[in-house]
């Protein structure tokens, strides 16, 4: 049997490190070449890392949440023909769960086994009122595991709470690891090693468990004493899992660190006052795409003095025009969007006022006016904001633009967009109106010098010849870098864009 080490490959040009998002395999799992073993998030995209070997997983060298430099060993494989034997049990093929199991996703195999044992009622029928069942869902408790204290074992809300508190104790570490990757101090133990085994004190002075049941006060005590609760030996079990009490922690701490008497006394007082409150705060990692967005925004806002100019385009004609052209577009399988018209109008405006299609190069002491029109479009994705760029907008027709925008947006949302497709922009449009609202103060996509935000197209009251009438309007919010552009130019540019939107036939000229 040969052990092969596998390094985090170069997942994209210029990417030096990635965050390990998740392992798709566990030690002992059989893998074939090409199987996905891990997901790694770089500052641009989520990348799946395939195995280069056939064999079984021997060891994982990183935890989800770790930042791993390219070239570091992240996983090792046992490469052998007979690799599949022996370890089969350690595989966890049922981690996917049933559809709809999402509430119980965190449920471990051990818990499932316990539930199966406890279920002496047929078909998992649970005698509990709806309020107790709802509470169980809220707390993430599998109600089938709760022992009922009512007549005939009927489960009350307090039973659910009691179960949750003991379960929470044993889930604590796991939860923390999930929310704050990389901070969980749990020692590495091979997955699949029967967590249901009772670890007895006789086994040795130091236990090595993956999960431990304990009340929160005991857990707090362990933390205070600097004791890893998984290392505390105990003979007691609950629901088939090792159960640690305060006295065990104290005894262990004393043995580990002889002169710890005072600390123990202090801790005892602390333990008494500790209560089992749910976490008041949670942490979410500030990494990957989120951090990239954050840094970009900060750079832009702290570098460029922003001024935002607001105006409203009246677009009844545009609404009609689009309605007319839509059918033709549909015949070609293209959904003609307003965005295509907006892109054209913006480029017409930029041609008249090139200062808005520029970049300030402070080092050289020049303002670079661009004679090409690459327009970025802000897209909200699950991972955060992305700005795909439509290149050479001035050379493309409405249909082509509509199609391209759609394709880029889809790629961005699916995170299959390439870095090239998000580079080289000269001006950006953000359509916050899709979520409602009229005006905003967008942040410039630095080093560009202007960004135009679109509100929602709606019928709004406008004054026409002294009469208030309803008309389709599109609110515009143009933010400019005042170092380069002055308010008058912003207003004139906006007026031009408005004109083209109001009379879209002008775009033909």
């Amino acid at each position, binding site marked *: 049997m040969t052990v092969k080490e596998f390094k985090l490959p170069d997942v994209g040009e210029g990417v030096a490190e990635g965050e390990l998002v998740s392992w798709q395999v566990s030690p002992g799992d059989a893998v074939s070449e090409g199987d996905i073993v891990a997901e790694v998030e770089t500052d641009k995209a989520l990348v799946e890392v395939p195995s280069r070997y056939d064999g079984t997983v021997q060891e994982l060298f990183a935890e989800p949440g770790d930042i791993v430099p390219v070239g570091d060993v992240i996983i090792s494989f046992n490469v052998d023909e007979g690799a599949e034997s022996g370890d089969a049990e350690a595989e966890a093929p049922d981690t996917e769960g049933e559809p709809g199991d999402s509430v119980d996703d965190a449920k471990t195999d051990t818990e499932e086994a316990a539930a199966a044992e406890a279920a002496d009622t047929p078909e998992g029928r649970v*005698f509990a009122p709806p309020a107790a069942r709802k509470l169980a869902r809220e707390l993430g408790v599998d109600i089938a595991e709760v022992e009922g204290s009512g007549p005939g074992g009927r489960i009350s809300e307090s039973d659910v709470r009691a179960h949750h508190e003991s379960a929470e104790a044993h889930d604590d570490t796991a939860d923390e690891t999930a929310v704050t990757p990389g901070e969980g101090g749990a020692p590495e133990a091979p997955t699949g090693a029967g967590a249901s085994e009772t670890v007895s004190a006789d086994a040795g002075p130091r236990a090595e468990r993956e999960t431990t049941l304990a009340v929160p006060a005991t857990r707090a005590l362990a933390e205070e004493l600097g004791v890893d609760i998984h290392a505390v030996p105990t003979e007691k079990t609950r629901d088939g899992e090792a159960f640690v009490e305060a006295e065990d922690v104290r005894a262990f701490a004393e043995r580990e660190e002889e002169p710890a008497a005072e600390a123990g006394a202090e801790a005892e007082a602390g333990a008494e006052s500790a209560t089992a409150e749910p976490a008041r705060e949670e942490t979410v990692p500030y990494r990957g795409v989120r951090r990239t967005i954050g840094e970009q925004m900060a750079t832009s806002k702290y570098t460029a003095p922003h001024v935002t100019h607001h105006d409203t385009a009246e677009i009844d004609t545009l609404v009609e025009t689009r309605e007319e052209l839509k059918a033709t577009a549909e015949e070609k399988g293209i959904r003609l969007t307003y965005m295509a018209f907006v892109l054209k109008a913006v480029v017409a405006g930029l041609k008249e006022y090139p200062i808005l299609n520029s970049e300030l190069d402070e080092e050289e002491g020049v303002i670079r006016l661009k004679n090409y029109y690459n327009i970025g479009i802000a897209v909200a994705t699950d991972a955060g904001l992305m700005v795909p760029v439509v290149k050479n907008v001035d050379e493309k027709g409405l249909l082509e633009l509509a199609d391209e925008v759609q394709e880029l947006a889809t790629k961005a949302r699916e995170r299959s967009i390439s870095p090239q497709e998000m580079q080289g922009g000269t001006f950006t449009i953000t359509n916050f109106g899709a979520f409602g609202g009229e005006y905003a103060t967008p942040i410039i996509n630095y080093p560009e010098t202007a960004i135009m935000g679109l509100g929602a197209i709606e019928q709004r009251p406008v004054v026409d010849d002294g009469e208030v009438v309803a008309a389709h309007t599109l609110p515009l919010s143009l933010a400019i870098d005042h170092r380069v552009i002055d308010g008058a130019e912003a207003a004139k540019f906006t007026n031009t864009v408005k004109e083209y939107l109001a009379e879209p036939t002008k775009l033909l000229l």
Partner: protein
Amino acid sequence: MVVGDVTTGTEVLVIGAGPGGYVAAIRAAQNGLDTTLVDRDAYGGACLNYGCIPSKALISATDVAHDARNATEMGVHADPVIHTDEMQEWKEGVVDQLTGGVEKLCKANGVNLMQGEATFVDDSTARIAHGGEGQGSESIEFEHAIVATGSRPIQVPGFEFEHEPIWSSRDALDVEEPPEKLVVVGAGYIGMELSTVFAKMGVDVTVVEMLDGILPGYEDDVSRPVKKRADELGIEFNFGEAASEWEETEGGVVVTTEDEDGAEYTYDADKVLVAVGRQPVSESLDPEAAGVEVDENGFVQTDDQARTNVENVFAVGDVAGEPMLAHKASKEGIVAAEVIAGEPAALDQQAIPAAVFTDPEIATVGMTEAEAEEAGFEPKVGEFPFRASGRALSTGESEGFVRIVAEQEADFVLGAQIVGPEASELIAECALAIEMGATLEDVASTVHTHPTLAEAVMEAAENANDEAIHTLNR
């Protein structure tokens, strides 16, 4: 999400405004979600417009006439005359009030209402074709969609509803002038409810059913009082026969049926009501365009959060599978809306009650004795006949019984079957007992008002524990 149709985007698009869809839309809006509810037809769906509500209106109206006609025993002599057109007008009024109420509730909760037929373009876009000529269509982008497109009556080949003499349940409910002779194909709950309505209007009703009895799925002793009453009303039953063809005659139509051995029978009629079940409506929506899988029967498969195989698309009500009941649809609608809002909701109910508004009514919830046994329980059963109920006797309606099924070990209530007066109302207590994990003792020890029909539930629970007062314990 961001690019595309700048005009219309919505967080939740609900397709279909029946009891699944409008409830989902209201709850979604209550949860602060930007919600759009689209329907190609009328607010309230089949339930309010062509099903539950209008049928119950006609059932109650014909009951009034029937009861008045049959109250000589009580010393009341009357000869009621039914003006079908006025009855229809009253029924329409009830329907209008309710559908108008649905519309108001939606608006008051901030739901955007849209008329039109929705078709998926992909899993984040739908096209809405507006009704009427020249109304055009528009696209709407959604973050989540709830499919609540409901069901329609199944057509029997050859007996398509476009033929004037062939009625769907919807046509039957809109009847302006009752036919003299009516053939009803199907003795399920819709066929039985409407047969009773027409018999009470004085129509000569013949029922043709492929199976060998009425109301398949119900225990024999539960459906027996209904059959008995139908016989008394003069409804003629022909079991083991399937309608095969019909043709127009001088005075009406003649329907031909065929039994298992190929023998043919014919029945004269003015109209033929086909009530052989309902099927989901999903094809106009093109669920596949959104990647939503539909099974061979047209049902959309969902999980216990009403979610389809596509993460952001949910399905509720009849289109999401049996049982096709309005209250099931509403529950699923609420769960879907709450799941979308991020709540830990799930379809975890223990039982869904069902009622048949025949004469007498049937209502059931949870398990029958046989089902409990099958599920691995040792069942314990208690019964109370309405003829032992003071209230039942004093209403002049004492047919039927309440049966309650519990499990032996801790006496948890598992199910109930009721046939008799107001069964549809009485079942609610049993449903609550099941959901609460109540025991027979809990039900028996709850003080029930005297004299009421509800006492029968308490007595049945007592009977199961051999503690009944008003019946002999068995």
